[in-house]
């Protein structure tokens, strides 16, 4: 994990990114590199531009200036065909699921396969069932509609859909927000397992300190339109910047830290 960020093993390269909403500056010359097969967490207070950054990376929004390269493709002036091809190489799990209300869960998961590949319906159903099981959902959930599911189930189903096309890059927007601790733990484990299995690069937006300590390889702290701190949680814990300290010095930050820090040190020691 400690390899330097050369262009070859980076999946996302952001250089001098600037975004403005009217007078409000969201990103002011932001630089960030996501390496292949790492789990990078984006953290920052509300309005620090995490979600905007994610939307710009996944082609939902245009930055004002600066360059974003995803999987080696420059997003500026990207052609429609290239954008379509690129979109099939990543999966996105939206904060509130983004599942289509008019389709069953199984149809939701199978949709990318049905839309973009020539596989038979029977095979797509089998694969959808498997991805559903992989995210820890019961088989009968497949026949239900999104409105019938609980929040945690929606997140899992959304993750299963994001995984349908075996993406190289996975974006998770608040994967554990609004979940009970047990479900959140399961999501933690699921993310680690997926990375090991598919060699995925994962970008997570989160406020969940447990998720940060347990799952992320590196954490990028966003504040004032820039990345203020970048490194593993153990490294960030030693950085003395106000934007970073806020995360560790609040009561929640202190509560998550002590027992987790030991584990994190052990893990880094092992690799």
């Amino acid at each position, binding site marked *: 994990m400690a390899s330097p960020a050369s262009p070859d093993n980076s999946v996302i390269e952001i250089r001098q990114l600037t975004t403005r909403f009217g007078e409000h500056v969201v990103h002011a010359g932001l630089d960030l590199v996501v390496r292949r097969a790492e789990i990078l967490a984006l953290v920052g207070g509300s309005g620090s531009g995490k979600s905007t950054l994610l939307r710009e990376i996944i082609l939902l929004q245009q930055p004002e200036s600066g360059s974003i390269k995803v999987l080696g*493709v420059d997003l500026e002036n990207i052609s429609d065909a*290239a954008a*379509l*091809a*690129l979109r*099939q190489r990543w999966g996105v799990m939206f904060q509130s699921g983004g599942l289509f*209300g*008019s389709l*069953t869960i*199984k149809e939701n998961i199978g949709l990318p*396969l049905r839309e*973009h*590949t*020539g*596989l*038979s319906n029977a*095979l797509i159903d*089998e*694969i959808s*069932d*498997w*991805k559903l*099981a*992989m995210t820890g959902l019961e*088989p*009968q959930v*497949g*026949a239900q509609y*999104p*409105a*019938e599911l609980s929040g945690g189930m929606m997140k899992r189903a959304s993750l299963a859909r994001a995984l349908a*096309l*075996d993406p190289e890059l996975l974006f998770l927007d608040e994967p554990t927000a609004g979940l009970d601790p047990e479900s959140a733990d399961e999501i933690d484990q699921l993310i680690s397992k997926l990375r090991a*299995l*598919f*060699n995925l690069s994962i970008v997570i937006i989160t406020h969940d300190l447990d998720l940060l300590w347990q799952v992320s390889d590196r954490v990028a702290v966003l504040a004032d339109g820039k990345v203020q701190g970048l490194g593993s949680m153990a490294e960030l814990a030693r950085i003395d910047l106000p934007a970073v300290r806020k995360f560790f010095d609040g009561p929640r930050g202190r509560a998550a830290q002590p027992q987790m820090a030991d584990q994190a040190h052990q893990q880094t020691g092992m690799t």
Partner: protein
Amino acid sequence: MTLFPATPAEIARTTPQELVVSGTWTAYGIGQIEAQLKALSAPSGSTLVIDASRIEAFDSVGAWIMEKLRRRLGEESVGIEIQQLRPEFAKLLAVVGQEFILQADTARPDPSWRDNVGRGTVAAFEQGMALLGFIGECTLAFGKCLADPKSFRWRTVLYNIRIAGFDAMPIVGLLSFLLGIVVAYQGADQLRQYGANIFVADLVGLSMLREFAPLITAIIVAGRSGSAYAAQIGTMAVTEEIDAMRTIGIAPLELLVLPKIIAMLIALPLLTVFADVLGVFGGMLMARAQLAVSYVEFLDRFVKTVSVTAYLIGLGKAPVFAAIIVTVGCFQGFRTHGGPDSVGRQTTRSVVQSIFLVIVADALFSVAFSALDL
């Protein structure tokens, strides 16, 4: 970067005991050989060697298909030996091997037509009962507000009169004006044949005042305000605003439904009068243009033949239509549950049902009035 890879997945049976697989074993590349793999068989008891050294890409779909082949042939007691699969691909295949389960078909079976009829009937009955319940609740709330008129929200009523009544004037006026023109125009030909030109005043006056003005007004308002009520209350139900209101101690019916009903009971008759005026005016214009009946002659005849009863009959229907529109719109709004898409469904339902009920009520009025010789 093409969507379909340059080298799609291929299989070749070099000898009866050997299979060479190559190409891109991914969701994009494997579609072509799916049928080929299904037809693949080997004599039982033998061992099939799969040379996988030329597989260039392997994703979970490829692994799934490979595992499926292995299981199927395994059941036919054919041994499978996969050779020279790249280690990273083998890891994926091993995981698929552990997690492979063919789910029994969990899809809900398509119901038969008898099922559908039965379910439809039960749902319609249940909805009818719920509507009755809703009307009952509204009546109770109305009684409560009569007992304590000071606590009633008159400002909301005024606001609703403006939204549902005043703001609807242009469209109601325009459409009834056009309707008046159409009625006079259609009648003109027939009347001219008999030289009965002056009867255009009877035709336009009676049909507009008794039937068309109340009906067209009610239909426009049902489409305009009924749908808005259903959507507003439905959205509030989905976002738990209704529950919040109950928790804070505000009765949703008193705040959301009663002011709308009272406002509509005032606004719809007024709109109907407005529609009467513009409809007759449209007919009058047409009478002069097509039948050379002057305004004075038209109005003279109009006053003589069109009785106050005809006007009152038309006007009397308006409050009934108003009650139907608001009740159905709010009722469908309150029945919204689940996700945001159900708001759209309930809104559609509210418009369809309120227009349907308005026309049914109008037909019943016609029957009743003819029985009463009015």
